[in-house]
């Protein structure tokens, strides 16, 4: 049908070659062909109550298994090799079990503009893996409140959430509504400690040095790295004693402030700008410890121990430097993920590095960090039968097997379950260089977009199956004890409160990042430090901290 329309259109273009006719036929013949039952303009949004009553009657007359179709916009990962999500086993099972057919609208990773256009102008029935909390908060009415439907239509989801610390609170907005359900994994142990410092043990052994435990020892080690031809290539000057990288998500230099007792609850710089101590949000950027950290780093720069390109390089350059075996110490996720096995073997974790003037080593990160996406699956106001869609989602959440099938493809491929119910990783058969295990996971499954996988359902990773990930778990073990124990809560914030905070952040963060980087590069004197303390005031640093205090106190 559509093709026919188009070919006639082509003839028209060819015949006249004019825009007029082209546009006119464009409007005329196209009319109606794309119309869908859920057509909506941005101005008329069906209220949730209307559609609920309407669909109640439908369900009664139709029965549960009557086929029904929904349109869902879904994030398509770059590793995914197929176009049609209905080829994924998990969704096929769900369609069979619930009679719900999904028409997928795939959105490539990184096209937030498209999502925003759809939000205003072309609402699908639901979004899967595309929304952030800001998007939901700022257009709350676009999403149905599921509070009253969950108990009846999604009992498995409710049961799952009730096992988690925080329970339904996790997805509940300050006004008491539930606009979305979580996807992904509840926790991921390997992620708790974000960037971890590693050091080349071979180099230490050559010099007869131990793994440093204080910043002074670390300084001496770096000097030795600088002065000797550690990698034995005949050039004593090509070693990079220490580097971080602002281009890599978990390798920021601010992690080094851990030695002075300053730590963040995530990999972002911003999470280091305050700490929670005894229920109080405590500023860190105006402390003597932070100043000591900056001065120490400046000394490293001056003595040629720190690679200043860490501030400007691309992520590619960071990886290339690590791979080339020139780097003595760095902060990263795991050496095996970035370097050849022979090279990665040379590195060990620096578990603890404390500064004499600091309050003791604290590692950035968050214990049992909730890693799910709370706005992962959201049913919109365009959906006329949210009950059926919820039932479909509930089926996908109904058991560990179903969740894993949806996340990673069929049982016995990437995963399996032993008789105790423990999920463990296996290696799929048909892998090649062009179809890696990552391709497998994202092609047959949807990985992090599946309904919340609970801590009790966590997959067991063995060294044989995924050495790099397994090794990373061991790295986290070494620093786990130093992880912070107090963090701001994980709670939804409504849009006006969120706005108050984010409005301060763009300018404040730009200032702090620049201050940190330029102090490390150029040094700090008393005048500059005083100017910094004044600047903190004018960039609303303390208002920002107060916001977090209110948030911790539950007043936001």
């Amino acid at each position: 049908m559509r093709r026919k329309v188009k070919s006639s259109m082509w003839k028209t273009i060819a015949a006249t070659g004019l825009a007029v006719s082209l546009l006119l036929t464009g409007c005329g013949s196209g009319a109606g062909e794309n119309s869908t039952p859920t057509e909506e303009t941005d101005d008329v949004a069906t209220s949730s109550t209307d559609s609920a009553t309407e669909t109640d009657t439908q369900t009664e007359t139709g029965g549960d298994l009557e086929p029904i179709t929904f349109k869902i916009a879904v994030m398509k990962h770059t590793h995914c090799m197929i176009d049609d999500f209905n080829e994924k086993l998990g969704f096929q099972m769900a369609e069979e079990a619930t009679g719900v057919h999904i028409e997928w609208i795939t959105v490539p990773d990184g096209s937030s503009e498209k999502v925003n256009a759809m939000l205003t102008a072309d609402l699908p029935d639901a979004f899967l893996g595309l929304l952030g909390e800001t998007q939901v908060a700022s257009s709350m009415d676009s999403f149905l409140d599921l509070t009253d439907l969950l108990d009846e239509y999604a009992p498995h989801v409710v049961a799952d959430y009730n096992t988690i610390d925080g329970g339904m609170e996790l997805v509940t907005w300050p006004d008491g509504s539930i606009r979305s359900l979580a996807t992904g994994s509840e926790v991921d142990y390997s992620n708790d400690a974000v960037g971890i410092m590693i050091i080349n043990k071979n180099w230490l052994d050559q010099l007869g040095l131990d793994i440093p435990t204080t910043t002074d020892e670390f300084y001496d080690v770096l000097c030795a790295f600088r002065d000797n031809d550690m990698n034995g290539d005949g050039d004593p000057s090509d070693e990079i004693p220490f580097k971080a990288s602002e281009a890599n998500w978990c390798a920021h230099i601010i992690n080094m402030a851990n030695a002075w007792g300053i730590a963040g609850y995530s990999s972002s710089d911003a999470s280091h700008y305050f700490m929670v101590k005894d229920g109080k949000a405590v500023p860190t950027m105006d402390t003597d410890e932070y100043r000591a950290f900056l001065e120490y780093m400046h000394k490293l720069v001056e003595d040629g121990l720190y690679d200043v390109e860490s501030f400007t390089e691309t992520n590619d350059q960071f990886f290339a430097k690590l791979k080339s075996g020139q780097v003595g110490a760095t902060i990263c996720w795991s050496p095996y993920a970035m370097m050849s096995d022979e090279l990665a073997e040379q590195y060990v974790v620096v578990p603890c590095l404390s500064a004499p003037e600091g309050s003791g080593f604290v590692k950035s990160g968050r214990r049992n960090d909730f890693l799910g996406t709370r706005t992962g699956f959201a049913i919109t106001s365009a959906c006329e039968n949210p009950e059926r869609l919820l039932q479909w989602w509930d089926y996908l959440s109904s058991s560990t097997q179903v969740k894993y099938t949806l996340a990673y493809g069929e049982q016995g491929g990437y995963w399996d379950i032993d008789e105790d119910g423990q999920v463990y990783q296996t290696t799929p058969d048909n892998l090649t260089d062009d179809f890696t295990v990552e391709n497998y996971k994202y092609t047959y499954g949807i990985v992090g977009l599946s309904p919340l996988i609970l801590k009790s359902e966590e997959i067991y990773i063995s060294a044989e199956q995924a050495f790099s990930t397994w090794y990373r778990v061991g790295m986290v073990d070494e620093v786990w004890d130093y992880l912070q124990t107090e963090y701001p809560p994980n709670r939804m914030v409504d849009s006006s409160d969120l706005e108050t905070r984010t409005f301060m952040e763009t300018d404040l963060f730009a200032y702090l990042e620049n201050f940190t980087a330029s102090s490390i590069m150029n040094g700090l004197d008393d005048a500059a430090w005083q100017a910094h303390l004044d600047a903190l005031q004018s960039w609303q640093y303390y208002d920002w901290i107060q916001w977090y205090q209110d948030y911790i106190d539950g007043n936001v």
Partner: protein
Amino acid sequence: MSEKIKTKKMKVSKDDRIFDIVKWAFLGFVILIVLYPLYFVVIASFSDPTYVNNGKVLFWPKGFMLTGYQRIFKDSRILTGYMNTLLYTICGTFFGVVCTMLAGYSLSRKDLPGKTLIMLLFIFTMYFQGGMIPFYLIVKGLNLVNTRLLMIITGSVSVYNIIITRSFLAGNISDELLDASRMDGCGNGRFFFSIVLPLSKAIVAVIALYIAVVHWNSYFNAMIFLTDESKYPLQLFLRDILLMASSTINATSEADPEAAMKLQMMGQVIKYGVIVVSTVPIICVYPFIQKYFVKGVMIGSVKG
């Protein structure tokens, strides 16, 4: 007397020589500066990215590998992308050139009442646009979402090109020529098609190039409006590849850093190859355009 002419001529040839020296020095410098990074892209596309990013690749490929190109050409989507881009570029350029030449010519005519107003209305849109959401609604209203037609039309007409065309034609088609042909009973239509167009090959070539390049490089509308991968243009696939190489890990994949890192590694291997693959065709277009830049094609007829 003859002596005087001779010295003058000698002076001229001496001045000319200085001019030539300056010219060749400038051009030589420019070409060198331009050529090296281009050469770098090519050798980098055959080299191990670790060497490239460590500054070890200077004059020839190091750690020679074809993995990048293999990856690119094994991807069946690339071929689809090429075909689509070709279709959008050719049709869009044709459509755009027609609109631009017609409008540009009309606006170049001094005897067109209201042309100032029309010009202002056109120029106004270069500065004030309604943004993506109303644009999306219009496209949706015309039922052009997820159509190839949309990919062809959008980006074809640009006020900038109309202005360039107008000023070019105003300078090159003289009023006398119009008057003369009007004497011969030649109407506006025939004058445009049989006199103006043949005299304006150079500007047609330039405008065609401008529009073609916009189409060749565009991905944004495709990203917003296309939902079938079978309709994706090349750049949308390539953008994926470049993005994964450059972007730091984003929120959606933070839960899976290993996968993200593998993507970044793969991206590194292919990104220079991607540049080569995606630009060679459009670069090859240029010599065909250059044909129309030959001097003096139109002069005789205009003056005559």
